[in-house]
């Protein structure tokens, strides 16, 4: 690049300019790496203090079902929250997954062009609505509605409300990934199927969906990941009882909701506070798990 007509002065200017550019961009990238290292380091050091400094058994934390952080016989079983997080996220994906894939199919297969022009902005707007607004609507519409459905036997706060709110929130994530995957499919694949006399549904069901399965799963996993880390909307509607839910209508907690409710009420350095950091560490760990799963799926997709 440097070997062109510039004089010696131009050459020096080149080098200076490129040095500036390189330094600037390298610093930015370095910053990203520093930030992520710092996050992992600090959250891990606080989160592990529960086990190292306070002597809480990791087995009790991960598998104990008994959460009673205050008093003399304090016990720190976080399984109810871990289970709660998984249950609401998976339920949300179970509801949002099929809906999202149908929406993506509608955009690309059923009404190509026009369908996209209608649904695309809808999906974008849904993803733009802040999570507290979802929580507020859940609180004022969904919770009383669920309560009324059960004839007032249930308070309405609980797993069902949490999963429904989350499912609407992760709908855009799954839909946009599914739609991108569908759009990237070579036309020839569909045409070959139609040429064999297959109906549209047969083409979708036998050709398109199997081909795109890894991409669709990627969307669903990313949806679950988002649901898993969502805090306030869930906290507002789930009821926050520290038990593994026995039914859709019982009140439960998630890792995020416990952290939100108790972080500021406990004093820094106390075991009650440290154990919340352990839960944050659990959230970090799950983020890595989700990313690994997504990467494995993408590798399968490339083959």
């Amino acid at each position, binding site marked *: 690049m440097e070997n062109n*007509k510039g004089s010696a002065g131009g050459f020096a200017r080149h080098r200076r*300019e*490129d040095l500036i*550019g*390189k330094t*600037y*961009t*390298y*610093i*930015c*990238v370095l*910053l*990203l*790496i520093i930030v*992520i290292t*710092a996050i992992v380091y*600090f*959250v891990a050091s*606080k989160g592990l203090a529960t086990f190292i400094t306070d002597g809480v058994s990791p087995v009790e934390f991960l598998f104990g079902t008994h959460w009673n952080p205050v008093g003399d016989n304090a016990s720190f079983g976080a399984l109810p929250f871990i289970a709660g997080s998984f249950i609401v996220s998976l339920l949300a994906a179970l509801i949002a997954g*099929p*809906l999202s894939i149908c*929406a993506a*199919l*509608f955009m690309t*297969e*059923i009404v190509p062009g026009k*369908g996209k022009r209608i*649904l695309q902005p*809808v999906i974008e*707007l*849904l993803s*733009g*609505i*802040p*999570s*507290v*607004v979802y*929580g*507020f*609507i859940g609180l*004022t*519409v969904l919770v009383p509605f669920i309560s009324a459905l059960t004839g007032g036997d249930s308070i309405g706060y609980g797993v069902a409300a949490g999963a429904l709110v989350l499912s*609407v929130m992760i709908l855009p994530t799954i839909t946009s990934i599914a739609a991108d995957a569908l759009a990237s499919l070579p036309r020839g694949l569909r045409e070959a199927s139609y040429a064999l006399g297959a*109906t*549209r549904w*047969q083409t979708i069901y036998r050709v398109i969906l199997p081909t795109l399965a890894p991409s669709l799963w990627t969307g669903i996993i990313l949806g679950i990941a988002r649901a898993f*880390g*969502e*805090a306030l909307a869930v906290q*507002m509607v789930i009821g926050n009882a520290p038990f593994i839910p026995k039914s859709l209508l019982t009140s439960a907690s998630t890792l*995020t909701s416990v952290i*939100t409710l108790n972080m*500021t009420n406990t004093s820094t350095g106390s075991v009650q506070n440290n154990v919340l*950091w352990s839960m*944050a560490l659990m*959230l*970090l760990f799950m*983020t890595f798990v*989700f*990313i690994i799963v997504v990467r494995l799926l993408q590798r399968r997709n490339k083959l």
Partner: protein
Amino acid sequence: MNAKTADKVATGVIIFFAVLIVAILGGLLGYILVRGLSHISWDFLTSPSQNFKAGGGIGPQLFNSLFLLVLTMIITVPIGLGGGIYMSEYAKDNKLTGFIRLVVEVLSSFPSIVVGLFGLLLFVNTFGLGYSLLSGAIALAIFNLPLMVRITEQSFRAVPREQKEAGLALGLSKWKIITSILLPVALPSLITGTILAAGRVFGEAAALLFTSGMTTPPLDFGDWNPLHPRSPINPLRSAETLAVHIWKVNSEARIPDAKEVSAGASAVLVIMVLIFNLIARWFGRFVYRRITASKRMD
């Protein structure tokens, strides 16, 4: 069931679900706007919130949200831009680049509450910034950086190769090509992306609970010295944003009209997000038209 019937049924189901999604959005927007708009008045938008009594507004919260957005963007844009330029122009196709890509991906997947907790630990406590706009802005910047990097990378990659080659032919340095040839071409999609990212920042709450705090000191809107504790633009004061306010009045506050205040605040929040969306779209189309028009003139 024969193939034709199955096809019809399946098509029907897909269309039904698509309509359902549109209906959900319509219902949500309708509910928020119908319930909220009746509470929105000039007074509601400008008067301070109440702690105990009914009739409080959201003035300081609205200001905090906007000001925090500006602060966040001041931090995010330069760093995100640099990171994105690196990814699209400097990064070689090797293990290191793969690692950096992973870093960006992981960072963008971190739950926002974890980023908030990190901010609490490092900026609020260790650096002694306290619950402050600055702590909040840094936390939001971390949360928003990966998105900014991705937007920048995509915008730069979308620039036609010929533009770059023309620059090389002119004997410009690589950095010169980036700043004076690629950047102007990439700018429209950069700005569109940034506005959309800003919308996301605007509604974020979980990361802010522990960084910018849940309270706002009484503000003196006649005092614009950033060093004064009651000045609205003092970056070291605590600041409750609109989204945090909605959460707080619903889960901790003591005001009797919590539902009305949050309905009004939700409507404001959603309208702001709609505005961000519309501006981004309009801007994208406007610039696209200008660029295509100028091409014809060439």
